[in-house]
């Protein structure tokens, strides 16, 4: 569309400095109210959960402290969110569990990020047959019900939390690999890379100054969007009894326990459910906002 949206012409020097890509992106992100809301919520939650981790008695109760005499109680003055059938303070468990869920989210995302970026970058750079082989493998793996394997792994090899990170991370890396490879291929073909070659720049410099910065955008976006998927997967596993084990809690565990007694003690399901949903919302809004701000368009999503 040659003339439909006039392009900004070269700015004469007097109209002030230009802004870099990142500054523009931050500016756009800032204008996205939902994304900023998400960011704020996440910040508050993370701070609270982290605090609960460092000072387990912050609410006055620890997450495992039982009070059998009290039993399950609806929200009241002493226990702001109520207690569960074993008399444990829900707020404490919620914050502690939040810490665990968030940590699983971040670690598993980090695992999938590492695997995915390396795999995708190799495929993208290599091109040709190697790339075709690697991507075909990804295509095949993408379609399989990986959750089945995670379940098997967790059932058979015990509920080791490290294993949990690795298992979940190993499921989620495929999308990241695809994105990274796509981006590397797209950037490789850009004219500015050709121009850099024509100017005689060395390969390494080209990679670091031109290709890598263009990878950061999609990586950031998809990492942000992977975290909620991971948290969902972890809670799914916990629901089946495979994830985090008692007396530790995670949101998945809390929801499972709450669902069991939902009829009589609804607060035990509602609060954990609401907090988890809120966190996932925030992550998704933030991810969407980042995607718009950094102007990233996935190939299949």
């Amino acid at each position, binding site marked *: *569309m040659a003339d439909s949206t006039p392009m900004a012409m070269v700015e004469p020097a007097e109209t002030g400095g230009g802004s870099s890509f990142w500054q523009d992106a931050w500016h756009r992100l800032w204008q996205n109210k939902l994304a900023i809301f998400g960011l704020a919520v996440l910040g508050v939650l993370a701070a609270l959960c982290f605090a609960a981790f460092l000072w387990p008695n912050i609410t006055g109760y620890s997450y495992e402290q039982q009070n059998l005499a009290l039993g399950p109680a609806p929200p009241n003055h002493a226990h702001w969110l109520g207690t569960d059938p074993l008399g444990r303070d829900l707020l404490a468990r919620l914050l502690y569990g939040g810490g665990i869920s968030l940590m699983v989210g971040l670690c598993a995302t980090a695992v999938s990020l590492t695997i995915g970026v390396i795999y995708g970058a190799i495929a993208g750079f290599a091109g040709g047959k190697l790339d075709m082989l690697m991507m*075909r493998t990804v295509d*095949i793996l*993408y*379609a*399989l*019900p*990986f*959750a*089945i*394997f995670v*379940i*098997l*792994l967790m*059932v*058979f*090899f*015990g509920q080791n939390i490290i294993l949990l990170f690795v298992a979940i991370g190993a499921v989620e890396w495929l999308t990241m690999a695809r994105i990274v490879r796509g981006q590397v291929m797209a950037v490789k073909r850009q004219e500015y890379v050709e121009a850099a070659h024509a100017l005689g720049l060395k390969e390494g410099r080209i990679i670091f100054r031109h290709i890598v910065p263009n990878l950061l955008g999609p990586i950031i976006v998809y990492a942000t969007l992977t975290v*909620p998927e991971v948290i*969902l997967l972890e*809670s*799914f596993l916990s*629901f*089946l009894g495979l994830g985090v084990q008692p007396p530790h809690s995670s949101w998945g565990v809390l*929801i*499972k326990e709450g*669902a069991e007694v*939902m*009829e009589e003690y*609804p607060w035990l*399901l509602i609060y954990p*459910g609401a907090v*988890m*949903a809120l966190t*996932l*919302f925030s992550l*998704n*809004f933030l991810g969407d906002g980042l995607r718009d701000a950094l102007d990233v*368009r996935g190939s*299949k*999503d």
Partner: protein
Amino acid sequence: MLRFIARRFLEAVPVLFIIATATFFMMRLAPGGPFDSEKQVSREVRARMEAHYGLDKPLFQQYLLQMKHLLHGDLGPSFKYPGRTVNEIIADAFPVSLELGCEALAVALAFGLAAGMVAALKQNSAWDHVPMGLAMIGLCVPTFVMGPLLISAFALHLDWFNAAGWFFPRDRVLPALTLGAYYAAYIARLCRGGFLEVLNQDYIRTARAKGAGGARILFKHALRGGILPVVSFLGPAVAGLLTGSFVVETIFGVPGLGRYFVTAAFNRDYFMVMGSVLFYACFVVVLNLVADVALVWLNPKLRFE
């Protein structure tokens, strides 16, 4: 086209083989055996049961035997349900899961496509924000929260449905909705994205210049390009529907294959686990092939390769 299909089947064979092998060794190497929970029986009886099923032979020999059986389509007996073979159990349970999966998919497609298309057409209006907001809820509220909530609201308080069971047609509603919600949300977002991208293309402008009205532009021009991301997603979506059914079947008491699979894993019911895994894997491979064929068929540029 036929070559494409044939090639995909050929690719599938080694994949299934690897899955079978991995599953086999994972199960056997894991701690615990199928008869550990039979506390009542004595040591000797247990040893005899294991011998009966060939579990006392060397591992590799068991592996070869298993592969041989698999090639013949014999999935073996179940430990947990003596007297029933895995084939029988799957034959009973799978149709249930299949029905649930299809209904959930129908829900997901109906809501997802409609919401996505409308949102793209009326971008940035209420018709866009509201469905996409609902979609966000569908994405962020897990099935095991939504399920109990729906049960609580519609079955227990309003008494429109039964809380669990799979006897009457109306028993399908809540499980299908619960399972389909996440996929409806995902499809709505993909569809919206796909349509937005198509609606910005030059050929839509040409269609407008020809005097085409909204409906014609949407269904004749935009549809084929706009649903491509949705079709791509269908492969993994089906995989997810199958696995998601574990939770839904548990919550709603649906006698489907998913439930059998999870309990089999817990019980170390080796043949049942192997049978379910392979069955699912095959199913997903076939469905992916269908989705990929659809993708190629929809895009003329790919069709003539």
